[in-house]
């Protein structure tokens, strides 16, 4: 009888996960048929394992957090499924040979982290107390990476911590820490923000308390940009802050000031940093640099074009011709083989994720959790926007990952933490 009630508990989620299973099955069949060099048994096991992991997670939620949102996990599952299918497909190229297996390991770890976040994380309210700790930890992390980190691409920009061959990007955890800080800060200073004003002559400026985190964000982005050439993360943090500010504050003017500061920052960055100028140039004139710096973007667009509306077919295209095809350009890899239909579906999935996250925010118990939800949702939604935007030339290409789809352990783990927190918030626990 308990099983029967269990079956009804998260019915939507189960049904949606069945679709994910079907996608894995059909995708797996296509891979096995179209790419003879893939070991069929290995591929099928891998995909089945992925499905099993999500079934396990869903089961876990049914017991531990039954009232949590039922759409989030399946959306994440589908994104990781499409990502894994693509990564497995790319593993025929020498360069990406090991990535599929590694991704599965990271996915398994991610599910574990998800369950751990739900079980072990303290009452979210208590996170409020640690906001300054979180901020400080974040800064230390970044400074530490700048000082002690490594650059696995061989360049001068140290974004990784290495440990026995496993590499980890701290900026991913930073995202979570920053959201916690902003949410707690904006919640605490809510009264102050709405009432107090700072008058400078005839100008009504927002109070110091608001300027504080704004400045912090600026500093953070600056650090990221200067020492780590991480334009994407710099943009991302600003975006997250603006989103959270908009939802938190009563005053519309704060948002505009925030945007203004952002734009000023962009212009300054453009003037002060030659590599930012260069990226802007490459973005605006890719055809001129089609054989050197803009090679990646151009090849990505060519890949998409070759896919057309129907796509070349999973395993039947040549996504491997695009550089970093399983990380920065995973979207074009999917777009080439699954066509316009597939690409739009992926965009749709991210939009659905955004909606779901905002709904969780709308139904949240208290303003802090609401702000957390907004921040966490924006992190993933904006990140996807930034990387796909770079692929499609909406903006300059940056090195952020496409959440859940790109190959990369640190990104997956941090993102599963985010999902765990969102599920907690949605369950009102």
């Amino acid at each position: 009888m308990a099983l029967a009630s269990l079956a009804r508990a998260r019915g939507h989620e189960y049904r949606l996960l069945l679709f994910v299973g079907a996608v894995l099955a059909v995708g797996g069949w296509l891979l096995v048929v179209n790419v003879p060099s893939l070991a069929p048994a290995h591929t099928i096991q891998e995909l089945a394992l992925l499905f099993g992991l999500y079934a396990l997670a869903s089961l876990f939620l049914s017991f531990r957090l039954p009232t949590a949102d039922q759409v989030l996990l399946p959306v994440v599952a589908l994104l990781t499924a499409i990502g894994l299918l693509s990564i497995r497909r790319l593993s025929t190229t020498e360069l990406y040979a090991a990535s599929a297996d590694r991704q599965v390991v990271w996915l398994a770890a991610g599910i574990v982290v998800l369950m751990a976040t739900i079980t072990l994380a303290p009452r979210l309210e208590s996170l409020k107390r640690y906001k300054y700790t979180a901020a400080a930890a974040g800064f230390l992390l970044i400074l530490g990476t700048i000082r002690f980190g490594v650059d696995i691409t061989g360049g001068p920009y140290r974004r990784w911590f290495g440990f026995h061959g496993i590499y980890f990007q701290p900026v991913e955890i930073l995202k979570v820490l920053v959201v916690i800080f902003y949410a707690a800060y904006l919640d605490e200073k809510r009264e102050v923000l709405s009432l107090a004003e700072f008058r400078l002559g005839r100008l009504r400026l927002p109070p110091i308390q608001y300027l504080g985190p704004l400045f912090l964000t600026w500093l953070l982005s600056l650090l990221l940009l200067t020492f780590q050439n991480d334009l994407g993360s710099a943009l991302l943090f600003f975006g997250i802050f603006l989103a959270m500010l908009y939802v938190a504050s009563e005053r519309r003017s704060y948002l505009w000031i925030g945007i203004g500061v952002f734009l000023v920052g962009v212009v300054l960055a453009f003037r002060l940093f030659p590599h930012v100028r260069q990226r802007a140039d490459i973005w605006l004139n890719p055809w001129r640099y089609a054989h050197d710096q803009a090679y990646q973007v151009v090849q990505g667009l060519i890949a998409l074009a070759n896919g057309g509306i129907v796509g070349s077919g999973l395993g039947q295209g040549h996504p491997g011709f695009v550089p970093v095809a399983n990380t920065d350009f995973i979207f074009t890899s999917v777009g080439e083989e699954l066509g316009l239909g597939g690409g739009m579906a992926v965009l749709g999935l991210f939009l659905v994720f955004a909606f779901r996250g905002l709904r969780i925010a709308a139904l949240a118990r208290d303003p802090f959790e609401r702000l957390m939800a907004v921040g966490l949702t924006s992190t993933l939604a904006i990140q996807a926007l930034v990387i796909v935007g770079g692929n499609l030339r909406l903006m300059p290409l940056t090195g952020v990952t496409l959440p859940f789809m790109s190959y990369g352990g640190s990104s997956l783990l941090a993102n599963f933490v985010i999902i765990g927190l969102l599920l907690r918030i949605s369950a009102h626990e």
Partner: protein
Amino acid sequence: MNEIDRSASRLARLGLFFVAAYLMLSGLLVYWQVIRAPNLVNRPDNPRLYAEQQAVHRGDILDRRSTVLVRTTFPGGDPLRTLNDPTLSLLIGYHSQQYDNSGLENAYNDYLNGAAANQPLDNMLRSLLHQPVLGDNLQLTIDDRIQHIADAALGSSPGVALVADPRTGEVLAMVSKPSFDANRIDQPGYWSSLQGENSPLLNRALDGRYPPGSTFKTVTLATALTSGTATLSSLFSGQDATGPLFIQGAMLPASANNLPPGLNQVTLEDAYKYSDNIVFAVLGQRMGARNLINGAGSFGFGQHIPFDLPVATSVVTTDPNTFNQYDLATSAFGQAQVLSTPLQLLLVDEAIANGGTIMRPYVVKKITAPNGEVLQDTQPSAWRVVISPTVAAQVGQAMVTAVNGPGASGYLARLPGVTVAGKTGTAQLGGATQQPDAWFMAYAPAEHPRLAVLVLKEQGGEGSTVAAPIAAQILAQALPLYH
């Protein structure tokens, strides 16, 4: 509105922002993946173009009896195109990744490669299914048996042998030596070995231009008859027959008369039979430069010859302004500045054989789509009406005499049971130590000609002794095979 509702509306607006942003991305996706797609796909830096080229299943090339001349097979997955008769390497050409295509493989590349979008819907379906595009098949007018006959008869030293049907214009054999083996074109070192001085990559039948020597007398004769300058029975006597001839201070020696000793008077027909250069020099002077050049022009000299491959243009003179009497006189027997491709001379031959009308020469008979649909079925068509049937009959008669008459220069072209018509040619090349080019043009049977033959042996010697027997051998072996 309480605080919750206010923040709810802000959340809704944030949601709208995301909708707008993702809609913009969708729009861009459509732009790149659909609207700009054709430009992007065809960029030369798209590596997929080269990867996918392997997937085209190039069409076959067959001879007139559907013997497979060229076919692409896939031993071990990769395409391998094999030319079964290497003697056709020059006509059919090579198909190479490194060196592109030549010959018919080049001229008909769009058909062979399936790119001549005759079935766009079908091809689209095939590309959707990632199935190789099938090229169209060519059927040639070539008869591979006759090709081998001509190749064997010609021997290995540089030269040309052409065989055609004068009634239709179909080319049945085209041999050019030296040649190469198209199958080996991509072998390391082979290409560079073909860059030598004797130009094995040159199709001499179409692109080689030579002084035609006495074979050109056929043109002169036809022109003289047409213009009324002379008749077959016109008499030439004394120095007009035997020489020497003095023109503008230069001398044509008596040795040029080729007459049997003691003869000092000949009819035009006999002068043609003996190949008397003196008579024709006189004839040329009598008809005048304009008649000669125009007469040659109607046979195709100076004109673009329509054919499946480009043909070099033959000329009587390279510079009409400096064409003087001496040139006129010597042009009349195919020297001076006269340059002709072997194909042009074959057409002269065919004109006589076909009652004065040259049929358009062609070698591609039929193009068939993979599904069997016939895309092109070439029909014989008249290219030029050169001379009247009467004049053609007269020249034909002279050509019969030139082989079968007493003392005929073309005596070695005689065949038992068949009346062969023909004309020898021995073209001097100018150097004292160089052998002349040996020519022979012929057709048979003279009464109802069905095969026309043109033979050239570069620096082979006398046309009568070197080229004529080759033509005879070809006719003897080919006539029974072709009707």
